[in-house]
């Protein structure tokens, strides 16, 4: 019954409840967004251990700054902004300025253990080959964010976001039209 009520509550309501010390509210909030954030980080980074570390940092940052959280109307945007910034920080700490996956190791297999198909592998490779800003923009859009939200998360203007989306789609289309298994260099 409690979880059903929490499922009906908005993100901000759950966050305010957690501010009052309601840990169950935070659990509901966490379960609502944990997989989406993890998927975004995985698709953007492609390395399981790194994704796990960044996801943990992101959620711990949410917990520690919960007391100062003010109702902004969009917890999810705030969460993904933190997550993306943590990912950028991670690469900076390693002296790799948010490098694209073309410079990094090959993406791991699906961490859920599901067998990957060839088509999926091609899409992953195509996304990984995109410039970091374009990749993040496309992935955030796929998560359902509006242009304004993506602009807020990536700290860019809406027109820039539109432009990145357009170039990313064009590039993906080009690569997906090519023969399967072709290099996306």
């Amino acid at each position, binding site marked *: 019954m409690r979880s059903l009520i929490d499922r009906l509550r908005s993100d901000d309501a759950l966050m305010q409840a*957690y*501010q*009052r*010390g*309601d*840990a169950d509210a*935070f*659990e509901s909030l*966490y379960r609502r967004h*944990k*997989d989406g*954030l*993890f*998927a975004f980080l*995985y*698709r953007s980074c492609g390395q399981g251990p790194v*994704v*796990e570390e960044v*996801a*943990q940092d992101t*959620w*711990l940052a949410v*917990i*520690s700054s*919960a*007391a100062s959280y003010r109702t902004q109307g969009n917890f999810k945007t705030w969460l993904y902004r933190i997550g993306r910034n943590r990912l950028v920080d991670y690469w900076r700490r390693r002296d790799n300025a948010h490098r694209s996956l073309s410079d990094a190791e090959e993406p791991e297999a*699906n*961490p*859920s253990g*599901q067998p*990957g198909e060839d*088509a*999926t592998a091609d*899409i*992953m490779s*195509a*996304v990984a080959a995109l410039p970091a800003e374009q990749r993040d923009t*496309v*992935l955030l*859009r*796929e998560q359902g964010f509006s242009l304004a939200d993506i602009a807020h998360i990536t700290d860019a203007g809406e027109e820039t976001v539109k432009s990145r989306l357009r170039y*990313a*789609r064009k590039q*993906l*289309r080009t690569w*997906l*039209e090519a023969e399967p298994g072709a290099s996306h260099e």
Partner: protein
Amino acid sequence: MSDREPDMALRDLPQPKSPSALDERILAAAREQAPARRQSLALTWMGGLASACVLVLGVMLTGVLTTSPYRTVEQDDAREDIVAARPRYDASMGVSDTLTQGAALQRRALPREEVTVAETPVASAESSAGLEADRARATGGKAKAASPRIAAYSMVGTLDKLTENATARHLSAEEQANDLRFCEQFLKEEEHKLAERCYALLRERCPPCKLPDTLEMALEQLEPQKK
């Protein structure tokens, strides 16, 4: 290929789930920090409630004091009289003088009923300049009829106040005699405690007088002098 096709292709991307070990770590951290926050919020809430209670109590007390049903117009008048007629304990005044002044003051401050009861003896003390007149009235038929016992009791509070404010000084033989006879008046009313208190006041007022330990002894010494 249309614009929709890349988006549809993106939906086919793997949907990795957050590992359960990570979930447990994060939820444990959330629970660990939540109780502290709850405690601080509870303390804030209790502090606010306590402040509000104090404020309400203060307002209620103020209301009770300003609208007290025990205060009457007569009491207010009496209070004004006390302020206006507050005695000045002059060093030149004897014990009987200060007692007389105090009695007059008390008579004004008392509620109307008590003033009526104490009217005769207090008036006698107030109207007489010396102790002889007081004694004559106190032992006279009219004074007895007006219950001198009650009159004596009405002066107990006055004596206490005078004791607190009395100033020590040397009294002349005549002043001593006057004051002793004033105290003797209480003895004759069989108000021994009041007589003792009166005499104690007299002794405090005049340490150099070297008065004997008891009022009776002082009166015995007084009688030969009179003779």
